[in-house]
């Protein structure tokens, strides 16, 4: 399972304040904490705090001072990505492009240039799809573009766009169906990830809903999630689901890894 730690994001008050004050400590604390919890990538998101690429670079460099975990550069702005990718010490993951040409063309080119992996969110000019078929169509477009630029499927993370269960209950089934079909694109298939916490948005049982949804998505082929990696129950459920799917070899101490 490829866990992408969601916490270094200015959507969280402590990170927002830290970025405004250029205070490295909260970022580095979360970098260490999420790394210890088993994150493969650390998502770094500047959000709406600033549109200055230098601020995003500062966040990444601050994180890299504390840990050598891979960076997931979270921005859909070409101008910011172009600068932020340069300061990543190891091949990063770009979060993200969509299937809309104005994003897909330049951002996929950046991924190719920087030897980066890339998350492709399966929305296009018309917005987020409401059914599985449109999600699959957009995913196909993203994957085709990647292959055209020599980016192998194992560097592509397709994101079926998770919708809140509470407000769009009929979407969950469509998302899972799309996930299942993403797995048929290639052999080996592309990675499949999602912004997990969307599913529990506005609910009172966030941890439980996240955990159940991720487990079900893993059954459909999902092998990554942008999530709260410090949620031990979530991580343990995902690891167990991977065993059930026979993707990992069982060992008594599997939860300690």
């Amino acid at each position: 399972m490829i866990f992408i730690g969601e916490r270094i994001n200015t959507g969280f008050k402590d990170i927002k304040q830290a970025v405004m004050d250029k205070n490295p400590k909260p970022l580095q604390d979360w970098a260490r904490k999420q790394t210890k919890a088993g994150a493969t990538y650390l998502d770094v998101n500047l959000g709406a705090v600033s549109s200055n690429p230098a601020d995003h670079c500062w966040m990444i460099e601050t994180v890299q001072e504390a840990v050598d975990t891979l960076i997931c550069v979270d921005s859909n702005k070409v101008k910011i990505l172009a600068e932020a990718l340069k300061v990543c010490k190891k091949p990063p993951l770009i979060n993200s492009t969509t299937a809309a040409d104005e994003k897909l063309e330049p951002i996929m080119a950046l991924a190719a240039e920087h030897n980066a992996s890339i998350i492709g969110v399966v929305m296009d000019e018309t917005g987020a799809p409401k059914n599985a078929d449109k999600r699959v169509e957009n995913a196909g477009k993203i994957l085709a573009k990647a292959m055209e630029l020599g980016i192998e499927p194992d560097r592509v993370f397709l994101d079926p766009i998770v919708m809140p269960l509470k407000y769009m209950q009929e979407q969950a089934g469509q998302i899972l169906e799309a996930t299942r079909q993403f797995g048929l694109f290639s052999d080996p298939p592309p990675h499949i990830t999602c912004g997990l916490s969307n599913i529990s948005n506005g609910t009172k049982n966030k941890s439980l809903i996240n955990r159940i949804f991720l487990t079900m998505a893993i059954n459909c082929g999902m092998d990554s999630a942008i999530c709260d990696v410090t949620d031990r129950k979530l991580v343990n459920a995902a690891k167990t689901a991977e065993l059930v799917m026979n993707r990992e070899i069982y060992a008594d101490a599997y939860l300690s890894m």
Partner: protein
Amino acid sequence: MSMPDVKEKWTNTINTVTIGATKEQGGTRGRTVTIGGETTLPFLTFEGEIPNRPVVAGIIGDVVPDRWPEMLRKAIGDVINSPTEWAQKLVEEDKVDLISLKLLGADPNGANRSPADCAKTVKAVLEAVDVPLIFWGCDDLEKDNAVLQECSQAARGENCLIGSATEDNYRTLGAIGTADKHKLIAEAPVDINIGKQVNILLQDAGFKLEDVVMCQSTAALGYGFDYVYTIFERVRIAGLKGDKLMALPQIANCGEEVWKVKEAVAGEDILPGWGAIEKRGVNWESATAAGYLQASADIVTLAHPKSIAVIRETIDELMK
């Protein structure tokens, strides 16, 4: 129309492990042996990198293995009575890459040699030859803890490969390996889940997996060989697919197992129609080892000089 490229693409590399230390590295070896580093399955050089060829370890004992058949003892010659001369013959005449010393004499039900005596043997073998050394206990848990600790200290700095850490002794072995800077064999009883578990335990105990060679136990041909073969293969495939806990080089202790089974040791009087023991024993050992090489063994241990020659030639051919 061009043919589609059907080569497997693996995402991970098997760990590289170096055994032995030269003077510059704090030991006294004339050369070191490096195994692992593969990015593909055995001998598929068209598909990925195999930077280090599999190696042959020649088996010696601190005492003469009393179960071995007369034909094997004869083939080895009088040197079998002296671990140092035996090791020298293996290196000089049979051209083995490293020596695998089984401290059989420590067995409380056998010669019951003391840890200090075993350590003397280890030291003497290290002085007699300049290739890297693997040494194994006598398979008695309590005795091995004492024996391996003393031998490890005697070989300090020589970067030996010590067998073996199991679920029962991983803490002791991990501490020994760390203290005296040796590599460890992690052993599991024909069980891939326990194989993974031992690696996790060693890692949790603070021993680096980069210093570990896995042993899935070894079965001679006809005695569960196919089970162990598939475990070797599954370990390697999992490792190449990205499971860091399985991306370790592997050792098959062929010689130790083969010379216990009747097909390799019983004469024609007991197995009529099975052919001359001289040929059969060597074939049994060579076929077992050749199988494990295909299953992804990085080290095979062998006892008979002729099997050593056959397997060295096999590796040469397959690595061409």
